[in-house]
């Protein structure tokens, strides 16, 4: 698993849920100026930072690192971008100071800064995520972003907002998805709160090497209780 400036809760969640099933995990942190090794990793986590760091990251991603991410994504690799990482996976990102930073271009979307009269979008979020078989499942998280993300024509959202703001607080969409690449504003942390989604990333990643692989179920009572107590409160508004 490769961790680019990612959220620690997400890293731990994948690590433990693999470990508890006897799947060994190695985590590699990729820092500024270091290259991604596309063939050596199965899951790529991509976090983000404050405006100043976003500029450094955008610069860092403008070369081979960005190109690697694009090819990993287009070949069906498992990538999760959260918040600042998600924003940089679009075509471009504009900072609060008006600086236009180029994105990796995995998703057809861009992010604009909030207007002076607009507030940051902050709070618990509940999202309905459509699955391949036509059913839906929910993910829960916390968002805190000033930027407004607008999806382009060809972009598919990760899900629809049940409660919260999502991409821009206006069109009811949250995040983006393309094959096995996901982008979202939800942290808080995302994966520990939503074990089914964590398992989906793990299973997809392992199935790329072994298509008969299935994950053994775990006892998720602690996680489910935590999810329900917050989701219930969020639904009640």
């Amino acid at each position, binding site marked *: 698993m490769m961790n680019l400036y990612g*959220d*620690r*809760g997400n890293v*731990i*969640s994948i690590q*433990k849920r693999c470990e508890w099933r006897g799947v060994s995990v190695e985590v590699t942190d990729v*820092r*500024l100026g270091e290259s991604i090794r596309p063939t050596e990793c199965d899951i790529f986590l991509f976090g983000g930072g*404050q*405006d*100043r*760091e976003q*500029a*450094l990251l955008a610069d860092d991603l403008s070369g081979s690192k960005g190109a690697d991410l694009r090819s990993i994504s287009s070949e069906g690799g498992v990538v999760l971008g959260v918040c600042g990482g998600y924003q940089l996976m679009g075509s471009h990102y504009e900072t609060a100071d008006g600086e236009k930073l180029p994105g990796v271009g995995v998703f057809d979307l861009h992010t604009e800064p909030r207007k002076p009269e607009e507030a*940051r979008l*902050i*709070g*618990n979020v509940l999202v309905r995520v459509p699955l391949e078989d036509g059913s839906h499942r929910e993910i829960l998280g*916390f968002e*805190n972003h*000033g930027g407004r993300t607008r999806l382009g024509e060809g972009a598919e959202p990760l899900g629809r907002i049940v409660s919260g703001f999502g991409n821009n607080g206006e069109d009811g969409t949250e995040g983006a998805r393309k094959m096995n690449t996901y982008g979202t504003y939800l*942290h*808080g*942390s995302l994966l*520990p*709160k939503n074990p089914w989604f964590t398992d989906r990333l793990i299973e997809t990643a392992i199935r790329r090497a072994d298509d008969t692989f299935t994950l053994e179920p775990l006892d998720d009572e*602690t*996680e489910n*209780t*935590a*999810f*329900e*107590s*917050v989701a219930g409160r969020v639904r009640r508004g």
Partner: protein
Amino acid sequence: MNKTLENARLSVAILAARSAMLASRALRTGGGSTMPGVVSRRVDPKVLTKLSKRLPGGAAAITGTNGKTTTARMVSHILRTANMKAVNNSTGANLVTGVTAALVADSDFSGKPRSDTALFEVDEASVPKVAAEAELKLLAVLNLFRDQLDRYGELAYLGKIIASSFDDLPPDGSVVLNADDPLVASLGRQARKAIYFGVEDHSLDMGRLQHVADSKSCPVCGTDLVYEAVYLGHVGLYDCPNCDFTRPEATYRATDIRFDGAKGTSLRLSTPSGETEMKVRLPGLYNAYNALAAAVVAMEMGVALEDVKGGIESFGGAFGRVERIQAGDKEAFLLLIKNPVGFNEILRTFVAGEGSGASHVLIAINDNDADGRDVSWLWDVDFEMLADSGDVREPFTVSGIRAGDMAVRLKYADLPVGSVIPDREKAIKSALEATPSGETLYVLPTYTAMLEIRRTLSDLGHTHPFWEE
């Protein structure tokens, strides 16, 4: 406007504030610490400026993510020891209204403060407003950690906000800065006069940056800083390998730090007017920093080194931050949790390691505005280090609105999860019951959970409501 009229307006403002204070006490609304400020400011918007200018010794403000209350209380205590009378906003009312309320309460109806000086703890985002209105001789910035990101957005921005107030200090005003916190130290580049303090003790080196490192890149050029020693979070001895930014030389230094668990810490204090050994009777490195900052502020206000030592050594603790409450034949030890760095420090001091002795632990996590609504910071707390230490004797009891998230966090650190009791009242009662006679229950609550737990303890007859303090 003429002066008589201005003074009359001030008197009416103080009178109105007094009535508001009495009313709120009588009605037990609990807003007694800010309401008089709101009321008096409405009557006389210049009330803070007028009163602060009448303080013979001037006013000082203390800000930062961690330790504001403790440090301000320490300075007040030192000043009292040195026979100077200081007013402060001691109940955690740290916005401009709370600061105003404190000064109003200290003044007679003619608008004359009874105290010689004022010591304010000020919320980071409120610094510009307070500095613009109150005449501050000193402004101390203790540290800037990722604490309530959902309130302020970004740390670097917060630094900018604080630095924007430097121009409002009077010509003889100084800024006191923590040299060991890179972001805080970098603010000195925008100050007319900056005084730096820092800890110099390589034995405190954690050997690596804790996971919560907030500001590990150079605040000037963005390059990763190189650390010679990391004390906690991003605080330590650092240097930028790329630009001219480096840890400023500290004129006030703490060295030879020796921890003695819950009993406190001893250290050697070096100042421009001499050196001394002293004991801080509050636990952990955090409080060593608070004592150091308090020493700087007190000495810059004219207190002699012996009085600083005497004051710090006789200081017992600030409300709610670290508090021991006798509960029958047991004891409850309350340690406020504000952010991952503070949480790590508490775990390191009380739970892990030799001589720590915390067996019975209750953690209570709320997500109200005052606690921070985003609980993702729980993942930045190093519970893994605790699991590795093997020092957890009994499973923790978990409580609070986000008890579920806390339980998940413990599970993923391979720590045993004890009872999960979201209701704070039930949790503290049950945890106290499970604590054997003669032993101590360690209670680790976020802010609003702490208020709730204190209220329950008070209802059980173990303490008094805080506003009566």
